[in-house]
């Protein structure tokens, strides 16, 4: 079970950035860290791998990385841009 994009949501690439776009109009511009987290959770890596990937690339501590990742994913889910498994 992993996260996936909600129906009608696409990832667009503009100027080296990923932008989540929902058909109904919600838009989320992702910075590099956010893109890294989303790539991991969508690739079935889950939050754990996302945190590990962030720690590999950026100088931050594990607790902060985990909190940021969870908050970010929860925010996308709240906007109905991503969903968990077969929700």
């Amino acid at each position, binding site marked *: 079970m992993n996260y996936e994009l909600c129906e009608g949501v696409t990832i*667009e690439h*503009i100027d080296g950035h990923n*932008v989540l*776009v929902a058909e*109904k*109009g919600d*838009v989320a511009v992702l*910075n590099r860290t956010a893109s890294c987290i989303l790539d991991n959770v969508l690739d079935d890596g889950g939050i754990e791998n996302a945190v590990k990937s962030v720690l590999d690339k950026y100088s931050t501590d594990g607790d902060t990385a985990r909190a940021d990742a969870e908050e970010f994913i929860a925010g996308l889910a709240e906007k109905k841009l991503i969903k968990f498994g077969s929700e």
Partner: protein
Amino acid sequence: MRTIIIPFTNSAFRLIFEDCTLADNFAATFGPASPYEERSDRIIEITGKGNMPYSVRLDGKTVRDGLSRDEAAYSVSRVFGDDICSHVSASVCVMHAASVLIDDTVVSFSGASGSGKTTLSLFFSEYGSYVGDEYAFLDMETGRLWHEQHPFQLKESNAALFIPDIASPAVLAVQGEFGRAYYASLAFTNRKNAKHTERFKLGVLVFPRFDPGYGQTVINNLPMSKLPDVVLQSLMGQAPPSLLLGRFIKMAARERLKFLEIRFSDGAGAAEKLYAHIQKYTGETKR
């Protein structure tokens, strides 16, 4: 009382003026009354004379009152703009922008009034062909852009550009004056060449910021975090703004649209620097 008829692509306007000076200026801007009278389906009534407050009514309903003459003229131009937006299809958005054609790609300048988009685009047109100002129509399925005729307001800061002796060759006429500001009807290059219906690929969208005291020109890629807000500020159309934004972003990604922001105080210098910047970027992209 004077009446002039202004034909637009989708509607015609019957303007009824109490102030003959204002009527003369509108007539000069839009050309003589035309045989489109029978097409007239919107009626704008402007009352007020000289320094007395003006009021503007559309189809019998008051749009605004207590206006100066400049404000009345601007209010009328906004009515035209709203009419344009009401006729676009769902796949088309209207951007508040001025556009210049460089080679086969359009560079559009978008921003609020006073941001310097008209000034910068006029200087920038020295490097290409002026396409239009105020209302840019963008087909979000094809990424193609065009302008339709519309009067636009020139501020004192750039009115000098329109004095015929020193005018940009792209600008052929100044017609009509409203107090301190000017409304000009441009003989756009495309119109002159009878290609006004041609649609051009939008390549670069520039968000200018005119800052008189800045003393330099700085060009940056637009931070993507700003993109939704700045785009929402300039898009209009039939669909809700959030839907327009989503469609716009998909088009921008598909067409590999470039977004720039430029802060400047000297229009000519900024245009030169921007042209070099875009040429460099275009060259790198082609390689």
